[in-house]
């Protein structure tokens, strides 16, 4: 497995994991608080930040346990990355479009922020899955 493919696995696990933690915390708060009063911003920022830190630590650990031949990406890595980003961009577009419509409809900030965050997470997860499929099955 190449350095970039391992990195894609780490990114997939950390981004999905961080969102799962966020969702678990927020759903716990929504149960006993009106949505408009739920404090989500700090949890969102912390889980997003933790995802980045976990991704760096995870990549370092993976390389320690199973060192790659080279830490430089090549033309195939770039092709796979381009494919994944291109095919998954619709999640980001959908999240932004949904947030735009919700803002115009004066929906509560909680939902707007969360639909954007969900768009980012789906973009990251779908992009990673597509890249891994491309690495395994070919381009």
């Amino acid at each position, binding site marked *: 497995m190449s350095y970039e493919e391992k990195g894609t696995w780490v990114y997939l696990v950390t981004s999905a994991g961080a969102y799962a933690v966020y969702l678990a915390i927020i759903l716990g708060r929504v149960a006993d608080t009106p949505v408009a009063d739920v404090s989500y911003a700090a949890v969102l920022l912390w889980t997003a930040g933790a995802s980045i830190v976990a991704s760096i630590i995870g990549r370092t650990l993976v390389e320690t346990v199973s060192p790659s*031949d080279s830490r430089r990406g090549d033309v195939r890595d770039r092709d796979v990355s381009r494919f994944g980003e291109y095919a998954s961009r619709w999640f980001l577009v959908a999240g932004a479009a949904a947030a735009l419509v919700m803002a115009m409809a004066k929906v509560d900030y909680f939902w707007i922020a969360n639909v954007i965050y969900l768009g980012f997470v789906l973009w990251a997860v779908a992009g990673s899955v597509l890249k891994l499929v491309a690495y395994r099955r*070919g381009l």
Partner: protein
Amino acid sequence: MSKPTRITNSIRALRFARGEMTQADLAQRIGVTRQTIIAIEQGRYSPSLEVAFQIARVFKVPLDEVFQYPDRESR
């Protein structure tokens, strides 16, 4: 596993004909990862024209001795 490309290649045979050159050695000589050589050999990745020429140059053979593109009928 279905191959995403119709391009076939003789890289494995050419490597063995050149003193059992390793995938890692070939990868290093053309500046790609070993995993990319494996993917090309297995037909999971069609290299760019530039990489294809680089591979042919390593083996000192014409491009069509390394890569083949069969007619659809002959698959």
